[in-house]
């Protein structure tokens, strides 16, 4: 059974790891800023509800951060082991970007995290607020560097190839490569939406359990308003992102649209089953001319089809469906968040069906984010660095049996940790309203305080 293709295994392993990893940064990036918001609200209003909100969400932040760190460390090892050809070819560009991420962002957030989480009694309130700000800025900075690298892999710029190796010629062009502004904006908004739905989902859950303290209502409103404000921005940013991709990676857009032949007045497919073998779609359901309208802003604009890129386009089925999952989730987010705002404004109290819907959508941000990354990453195939390096040429020499064993170990670990994470988040929500039972920690705490 171990004659599995090592390249496929290395890809699957890397894909599984980064999928697991991205779940947690997506939350910590925006949750850091939201905690800062709670903290500042408390500093200005001295209303205890904001402190309660901070105290509750900082626990979830700490938990999420720990998962992000340990999975990130795994990533940093796999980068070299699974893709030696990547560093050999573009290491001169990827290296400095990764190094700057570690130096400027990882140390900053990791060090001040300690002060943010446990230093409240040891530093002034000002210093503690500052530590919270630094942690939030650190996670965002780390996202900045890694998205620079990732965007450069999609739209490489500012380099020349010498003897098969990329050498940097213009660092500003590398950092602000053509897809970077779109991808960074879209990712930060994705993070904001994920957190908005997490916060409103958990608050709605507490509300449904009759925990209707001022702090729960405050976080529910914060989450819902945040979601309602961000989702139109995200849809607009996504549209711009797509137009930019059309310019630089037309094959990816053709795969997202499931369009085989170059067409004037291309339809928007609502449903279809693309078939890579026969190079056609089954069971199409479409809106005529819509795709042309969205992509070219003309009803009969021409959109390039996949057949123009035979042999060098990504697998269609995955990209097509991942794109629909993302956009579908985005539309659901729009509907639900606006309905909730309407209800919160109009009704004296929140209504149950909406609360249940919010609970169901607690982790909907994860779904859209992972689907979005699949569109982006699978859509870049067969390239690892678009037009520069093919994925197959970057794979590792580690024997398949070894990869397969560790892969199985990682999958088991990740599944267990995701289950533990989600159940502990809900457990924290359940126990938040109640007075905390005496655990060794609280006992020790009171002992130390009296001592």
């Amino acid at each position, binding site marked *: 059974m171990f004659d599995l293709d090592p390249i496929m295994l290395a890809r699957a392993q890397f894909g599984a790891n980064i999928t697991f990893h991205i779940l947690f940064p997506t939350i910590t990036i925006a949750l850091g800023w939201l905690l800062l918001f709670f903290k500042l609200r408390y500093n200005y209003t001295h209303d205890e509800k904001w*402190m309660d909100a901070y105290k509750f969400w900082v*626990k979830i932040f700490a*938990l999420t*951060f*720990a*998962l992000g*760190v*340990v*999975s990130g*460390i*795994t990533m*940093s*090892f796999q980068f*070299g*082991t699974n893709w*030696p050809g990547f*560093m*050999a070819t573009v290491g001169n560009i*990827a*290296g*400095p970007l*990764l*190094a*700057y991420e*570690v*130096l*400027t962002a*990882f*140390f*900053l957030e*990791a*060090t*001040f995290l*300690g*002060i943010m*989480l*446990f*230093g*409240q*009694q*040891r*530093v002034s309130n000002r210093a503690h607020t500052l530590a919270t700000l630094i942690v939030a800025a650190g996670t965002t900075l780390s996202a900045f560097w890694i998205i620079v690298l990732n965007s450069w892999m999609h739209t490489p710029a500012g380099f020349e190839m010498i003897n098969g190796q990329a*050498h940097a010629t213009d*660092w500003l062009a590398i950092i602000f490569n053509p897809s970077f502004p779109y991808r960074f904006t879209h990712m930060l908004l994705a993070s904001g939406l994920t957190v908005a739905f997490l916060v409103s989902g958990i608050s709605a859950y507490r509300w449904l359990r009759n925990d209707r303290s001022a702090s729960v209502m405050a976080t529910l409103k914060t989450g819902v308003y945040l979601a309602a404000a961000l989702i139109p921005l995200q849809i607009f940013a996504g549209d711009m992102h797509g137009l930019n991709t059309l310019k630089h990676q037309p094959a990816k857009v053709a795969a997202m649209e499931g369009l085989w032949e170059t067409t004037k007045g291309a339809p928007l497919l609502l449903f279809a089953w693309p078939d890579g073998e026969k190079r056609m779609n089954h069971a199409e359901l479409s809106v005529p001319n819509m795709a042309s309208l969205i992509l070219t802003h003309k009803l009969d604009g021409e959109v390039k089809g996949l057949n123009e890129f035979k042999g060098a386009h990504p697998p269609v089925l995955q990209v097509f469906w991942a794109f629909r999952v993302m956009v579908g989730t985005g539309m659901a987010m729009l509907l639900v968040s606006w309905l909730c705002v309407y209800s919160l404004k109009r009704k004296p109290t929140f209504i149950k069906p909406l609360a249940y819907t919010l609970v169901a959508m607690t982790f909907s941000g994860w779904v859209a984010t992972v689907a979005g990354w699949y569109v982006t990453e699978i859509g870049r195939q067969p390239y690892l660095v678009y037009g520069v390096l093919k994925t197959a040429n970057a794979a*590792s020499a580690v024997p398949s049996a*070894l990869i397969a064993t*560790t892969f199985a*170990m990682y999958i088991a*670990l990740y599944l267990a*940790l995701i289950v*533990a994470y989600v159940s*502990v988040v809900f*457990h*924290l929500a359940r126990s938040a309203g109640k007075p905390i*039972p005496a655990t*060794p*920690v609280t006992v*020790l*705490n009171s002992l*130390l305080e009296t001592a």
Partner: protein
Amino acid sequence: MDNLANGGWLPVAFLALMGIAMLAYVVLDGYDLGVGILLRRADDAQKDQMISSIGPFWDANETWLVLGVGILLTAFPLAHGMILTALYLPVALMLLGLSLRGVAFEFRTKAPPARKVMWNWVFYGGSLLASFSQGLMLGLYVTGFAGGAAHWAFAILTGACLCAGYALLGATWLIIKTEGAVQLKAVMWARGSLLLTGGGIAAISIVTPSLSEQIFNKWFALPNLFLLAPIPIATFILFLTIYRSLQRLPTRLAAGNEYGAWVPFAATVGIFCLAFYGLAYSLFPWLVVDKITIWQAASAKESLMIIFVGAMVVLPAIIGYTAFAYRVFWGKARALTYY
């Protein structure tokens, strides 16, 4: 030394940087992994006290590993591929251990109380697995990935020895950061791990030259023998210092006198530095023993220069705010609360 002219100093600078990062990692994460290894021996309230002493620091401590591996990856990509491919399995085990340990920090206090016992075990198991695999990696690395039963036996020895060394770091750290019963227990743990560490280092020092001709020649060629002699002598003195201090501490601590409580930890850090220096001396300039030197493995000069300049600007800041964080949490550990 034409290697050093014409930008050839950059690989040396990066080697030094990587060395500093790795040493910082071993000492810093060493003490918190050590506390994890000792966790099993304490009762429940003491476990909380022990973990409070490392809670604010472990994440930043682990970042030194990311930096060390990052430099290996970015400055010496050729060696990175070779080393991490050869160490694929121990690395995977280490990552498993670090992951389990890292998440257990959070889960043990946030999961329903009934699960806490399980997460404490995970914390202990993860710490032990990570420490042992790091020792395993060191053993395999020093022998140039030669393979074979003798080399694996040696690697298992270094694995066990590193666990003892981390336990020593952890126990001596606890002497500084805790009080009461745990502190006295920590003195006992330190005594036990001191003997194991001492035995381990002696065994490794005897076996190492017999496993690699390269290292044998370096140690026993004539001027070197005298240049190296201070290392074992200083190590021996440090061992004695720790030993005597551990003899005196219990009565003093029981009387509430903290004088000299930091001595065992400081001396242990000294031992780690010396061992590291000896190792670096034995291996230089090889990145993979007998296979790749640092000059053969380095990346393009312009890219190294960019990272170097950045590192020179940012590292002092990192050291500065790390010192600040240690100052904030100076003194005895208090229970970890978020407010």
